[in-house]
Every structure is written in structure tokens, then in C-alpha cells.
């Protein structure tokens, strides 16, 4: 079919600003990173002349880096899982609860996003440190002898990340549950299902698109989180994002840092694709 040129131009014009913005500030830098990851390490310069596979060789030959990827993935998995467990009931309440709760609850869920991530992460150091509020209180009450190791470990990072990313889990699930016709639950009840069964067989599977979106968001955000892991993990526990920044800024190894950054992106992408495959919903199409 022949479409008049004017009509074809319309949609293009509409997406042009976003496309240009993304092209210039995302795609081009990304390509630059890909190229950078194959460059030779430099002496006093960001990179040397010529190309090499050595940066990737270094990554795969040193178990230290593989271990870091695994740690980062684990932190991502656990953060995502905890956000799901903690966030789902809240999302359900926001979608289906009493209207008085809904307005307040919605404000409460969104309010952490109004405070900068640096400030929130510092807040957690005040709470979680060896001399922090939690340890001092517990010691003061005589419940523990010495401080619990809440900071400079994966536990502390996960606690803080869960707090930071919880809204990104709650909001998509809430909107998915809001999209479920309440008469479906009524129909399940009329067919003999208890409230629990009707939730398990109807509401939960139908909110899967929200769960899927929330999990992908939180997981990806956890993998790439930098501020929280670097403040709470300190020097002892490092995630990939922290190591990448170390390589780029502290040790000035741009090619190797680029290779690390890409390996992080690729592993994250692989996990997301596998997750998408596992949670494919035939009924949606």
C-alpha cells in the first residue's frame, strides 16, 4: 500500500526528539564503551595504541572478578526476592484495601523517592554501623554482647537496597492488581474457592505481569546500584558496579573498566531474558 509521505513522516517526527537524545547520550557512549573494552591499557593515558582481547582475558582468568559477578547477582536476586515478599502485600493493600489506607499508603510508598539516594544510604550507615543506633540499642538492652555485623557486608547492602528499591516493586504490582476485575475473585468464590484459594489461583497468576515488571526493575537497578553498595559495603564487600568505578577512576584503567562494565551488562541481560522466558504468559499474547 502506498502511504503518502506526509503520513509516514508524522510518527518519525514524534519520536525524533527521544531518538536523538537516546542516540547521542546512550547508544554512542555505549558503542564507545564497547570499542574501549578492546583497547590496550595505557601508561599514564586512558588507553594505549592498538586493540586486544586481553581485558576480557583478565576478567575470565581471574576468579576474583567472576566471584564478584556472582556476588552481585546474588545480592540482586536476594534484593529482588525480598522486595517481592515485602512489596506484594503492600501493593495488594494499595490496590484493594480500604480507601482511607490507600491514599496514605500511596504517599508513604512514594515518599522515600523524594529523598536523595545518597542521603538515604548515609541514613542506613547511621542505623547499621557497629556504633549505629541498632547495635547500640541492642547492646544497651543487654540483648547482645558485641555489635552485630550489619554493615560492610552483603546483608547491609541488601537491607539498604530493599529499602531503596521497594517502590519499584510495589508500583507495578499495584497497577497490575488494580487491573484485575474484582468479579473474577467473586466468580472463583461462587465456584467454591476459599479466599486463599481464589487469591492463589486467580489474583496471583493474573498479577504476574506486575510481578515480572517489578522483579526486572528491581533486579536491574540492584545490579547497577553504585551509591548504596559503595557506602554500606565499604572496602570489604564490592559489587561489580563499585569495581567498575574503581577501575575507571581509582586505577585509571579505562579499557579494563569498560570490559567489566560490559560483562555486568551482559550477565544482567542474560538473567532478564531467562527470567522473561520462565515467566512467559501464554494467555496474554
Amino acid at each position, binding site marked *: 500500500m502506498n502511504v503518502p509521505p506526509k503520513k509516514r513522516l508524522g510518527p518519525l517526527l514524534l519520536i525524533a526528539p527521544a531518538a536523538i537524545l537516546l542516540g547521542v547520550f546512550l547508544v554512542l557512549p555505549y558503542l564507545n564503551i564497547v570499542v574501549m573494552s578492546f583497547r590496550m591499557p595505557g601508561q599514564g593515558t586512558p588507553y594505549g595504541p592498538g586493540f586486544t582481547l586481553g581485558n576480557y582475558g583478565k576478567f575470565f582468568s581471574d576468579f576474583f572478578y567472576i566471584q564478584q559477578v556472582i556476588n552481585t547477582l546474588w545480592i540482586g536476586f536476594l534484593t529482588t526476592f525480598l522486595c517481592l515478599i515485602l512489596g506484594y502485600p503492600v501493593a495488594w493493600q494499595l490496590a484493594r484495601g480500604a480507601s482511607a489506607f490507600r491514599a496514605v499508603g500511596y504517599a508513604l510508598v512514594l515518599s522515600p523517592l523524594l529523598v536523595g539516594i545518597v542521603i538515604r544510604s548515609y541514613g542506613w550507615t547511621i542505623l547499621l554501623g557497629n556504633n549505629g543506633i541498632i547495635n547500640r540499642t541492642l547492646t544497651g538492652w543487654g540483648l547482645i554482647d558485641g555489635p552485630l555485623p550489619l554493615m560492610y557486608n552483603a546483608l547491609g547492602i541488601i537491607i539498604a537496597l530493599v529499602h531503596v528499591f521497594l517502590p519499584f516493586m510495589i508500583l507495578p504490582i499495584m497497577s497490575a492488581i488494580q487491573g484485575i*476485575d474484582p*468479579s*473474577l475473585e*467473586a*466468580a*472463583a*468464590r*461462587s*465456584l*467454591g*474457592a*476459599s479466599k486463599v*484459594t481464589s487469591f492463589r*489461583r*486467580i489474583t496471583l*497468576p*493474573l498479577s504476574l505481569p506486575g510481578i515480572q515488571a517489578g522483579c526486572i526493575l528491581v533486579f536491574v537497578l540492584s545490579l547497577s546500584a553504585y551509591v548504596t553498595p559503595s557506602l554500606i559495603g565499604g572496602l570489604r564487600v564490592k559489587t561489580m558496579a563499585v569495581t567498575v568505578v574503581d577501575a575507571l577512576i581509582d586505577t585509571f584503567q579505562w579499557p579494563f573498566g569498560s570490559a567489566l562494565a560490559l560483562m555486568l551488562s551482559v550477565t544482567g541481560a542474560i538473567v532478564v531474558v531467562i527470567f522473561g522466558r520462565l515467566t512467559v*504468559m*501464554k*494467555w496474554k*499474547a
Partner: protein
Amino acid sequence: MTEVSIEKLTKDYGQGPAVNSISIRIAEGEFISLLGPSGCGKTTTLKMIAGFEDATAGAIRFDGRDVVAVPVEKRDIGMVFQNYALFPHMTVEKNLAFGLEMRKTPKDEIRIRIAKVLDMVQLTGYSERYPRQLSGGQQQRVALARALVIEPKILLLDEPLANLDAKLREEMRVFIRDLQRRVGITTVYVTHDQAEAMTMSDRVVVMFGGRIAQIGTPSDIYERPANLEVAEFVGQVNIIRGKVGNRVVSTAFGDVPVSGDFADGAELMLALRPEAVELLPINSGAMGAQAKVLSSYYSGSLVDYRLELAGGVVVNVQTFPRTRFADGEQVLVHAPADRFWPLGSAA
């Protein structure tokens, strides 16, 4: 088969009763409609029968046993919702199996019963489809099948045809009625469509403002309405006024004999359905009152006339289009005395 008895059932949300002490006895296998405008309490009543709403007061008995305290899932009802409420993530087969699985029916029997019910709603071969792959009418039949396959005590339908187009709606009316007769299940049907209620029901319960205005067969409701509200709700009606004297009401149609105790001199309202009036040419020599045609509307099988009688009384008349009368033409109108139904004294 189950007899349902509703006794002084009341629902109050705190702003005055939405359902006000209504009582209905529904016989085994009876098809009963709750008819009324939105907000009349018909849906609330259905929800209380189903168990989705708690009754503020009163009793609901299935075969004599009060079920007010029994939760929805233990009431053994089959319900069809206005929007069908098919589970979108399950195939037709899974939708139909759901209620049977809840009853722990063995797998073999589930298969047999699904095949049987699919045959009954003429959807054999559709078991692997998802709801979104079905037309509105097909979804409707799956919803019916899902409610019936569990062989419930009663079948409850909440405006099930409201979302269908006119032609399909008429088909489904007949379909549901036939199916209900064949299965012989006690059925409560909620609708605001009087034609639907009349064509399908054994008896119709007309509700206004949380109260029952009238319970009766479709012809009771239509031909002998309990009051003006009912008369006007179930179809078009002319209200003819006249003074009572000597057991006759003198109206623009002439003297109409009435039975019943009406004091002489009282002003009475008589209901007269548009199709009860006969229209004749002015020169036909028949008995009747003179009237002038104000306007007419032709709709194929019928013609609607607006006529003006002596004293400026305007009536609507519906006839077959055998003889057409022009606007402004003088005609004779006649209605049999037994088609005038007294509604009581005019306010």
C-alpha cells in the same frame, strides 16, 4: 432442585435500607426475575442470596435451611456475572474445571462433565481456547456452562445479557430460558430490561427503592400492574383519568365499567396499554370515540400513533400497519372494557 425462601430480607449500608424487608418464595425449578431501575436493590438482593453481601436482617433459606451465615463458597450456587468474569489466564476447559476441582471431583468425571456441558451450550471443540479468543456470545455461554457444570442448588444471573448487542441478546434469552427448563434449576435473574424479564420468567418481582412493588407472572405485571410506577416501568402505558359514578368511570373513551370498591365521585387512574386500543376509519360506523392523529412512527412490524381525544386527552396507540392513517386525520378509537386496569385514585 431447591426451593428458595427469602424472609424479611434487609440490607442497610448506613444510609437507609437499600433492600427493605423483602420476602419472596421461589419454587423448585422456578425462573424468577428481579426487575427494577438501577438502585432499586435487585442486585443487592442477588448478592445477599449469593453470599457476597451480608444481610442486615432477615433470612434466606435453601430448602428450609437458613444460609445467611454460610460463606459464598459453601452455598453451592452457580453465578453468571454481567461481564462474564471468565478467568482470562485459563482455557475454556480450565474455566469449566475450576468449580469441579474445588469440589474434589475425580479427573475422569471432570472430563466427562465438561464434555457434556460444552455440548449443552454448543461449544464442543472450544475447550482449548482462551476467553479472549471467543466472541461475546460464546463467552456468555462459557460463563453459563461454568455455573451449571457444578450442578449448583440455584443459578443466579446478574444482568448477563447487558453487554451483548440486540440481536444476540434475543437469541441468548431463548437459549438461557430453554437451558434452564431442560436443567430444571431454580433460577434468579436480575435485569432492568422489562422485555427480558417478561419473556424469560415464570414470575417477575418488580422492585422500587428497596421494596417489592409487585410479584406476579409476566401477564399479571403487564396487564394488572399494582400501581402507576409498575405500569410505567413495564412497557408503555396510557394513563386515562375519569370520575367514578355508578360503577362506571367516565373517560375520554366513554364510560368504562370497573369492578372494585371505588367511591362515587372519586377520580380514578386507568392504565391502558397502547396495543390494546383499536383504530378504525371515521366512516366505519363502528362504536368508538373520535380522535385526531397527531403523529405516527412506522417501525416495520408496527406503527405508533399519537392521538388526541376529546378534551385534549393524548394517548399513544400501537397497531399493525394494515391501514395507515395520515397526520391530522380523524379516526375512531376503541378499547375493550377489560383492557382498562384501575390503578387507584388519582393523587
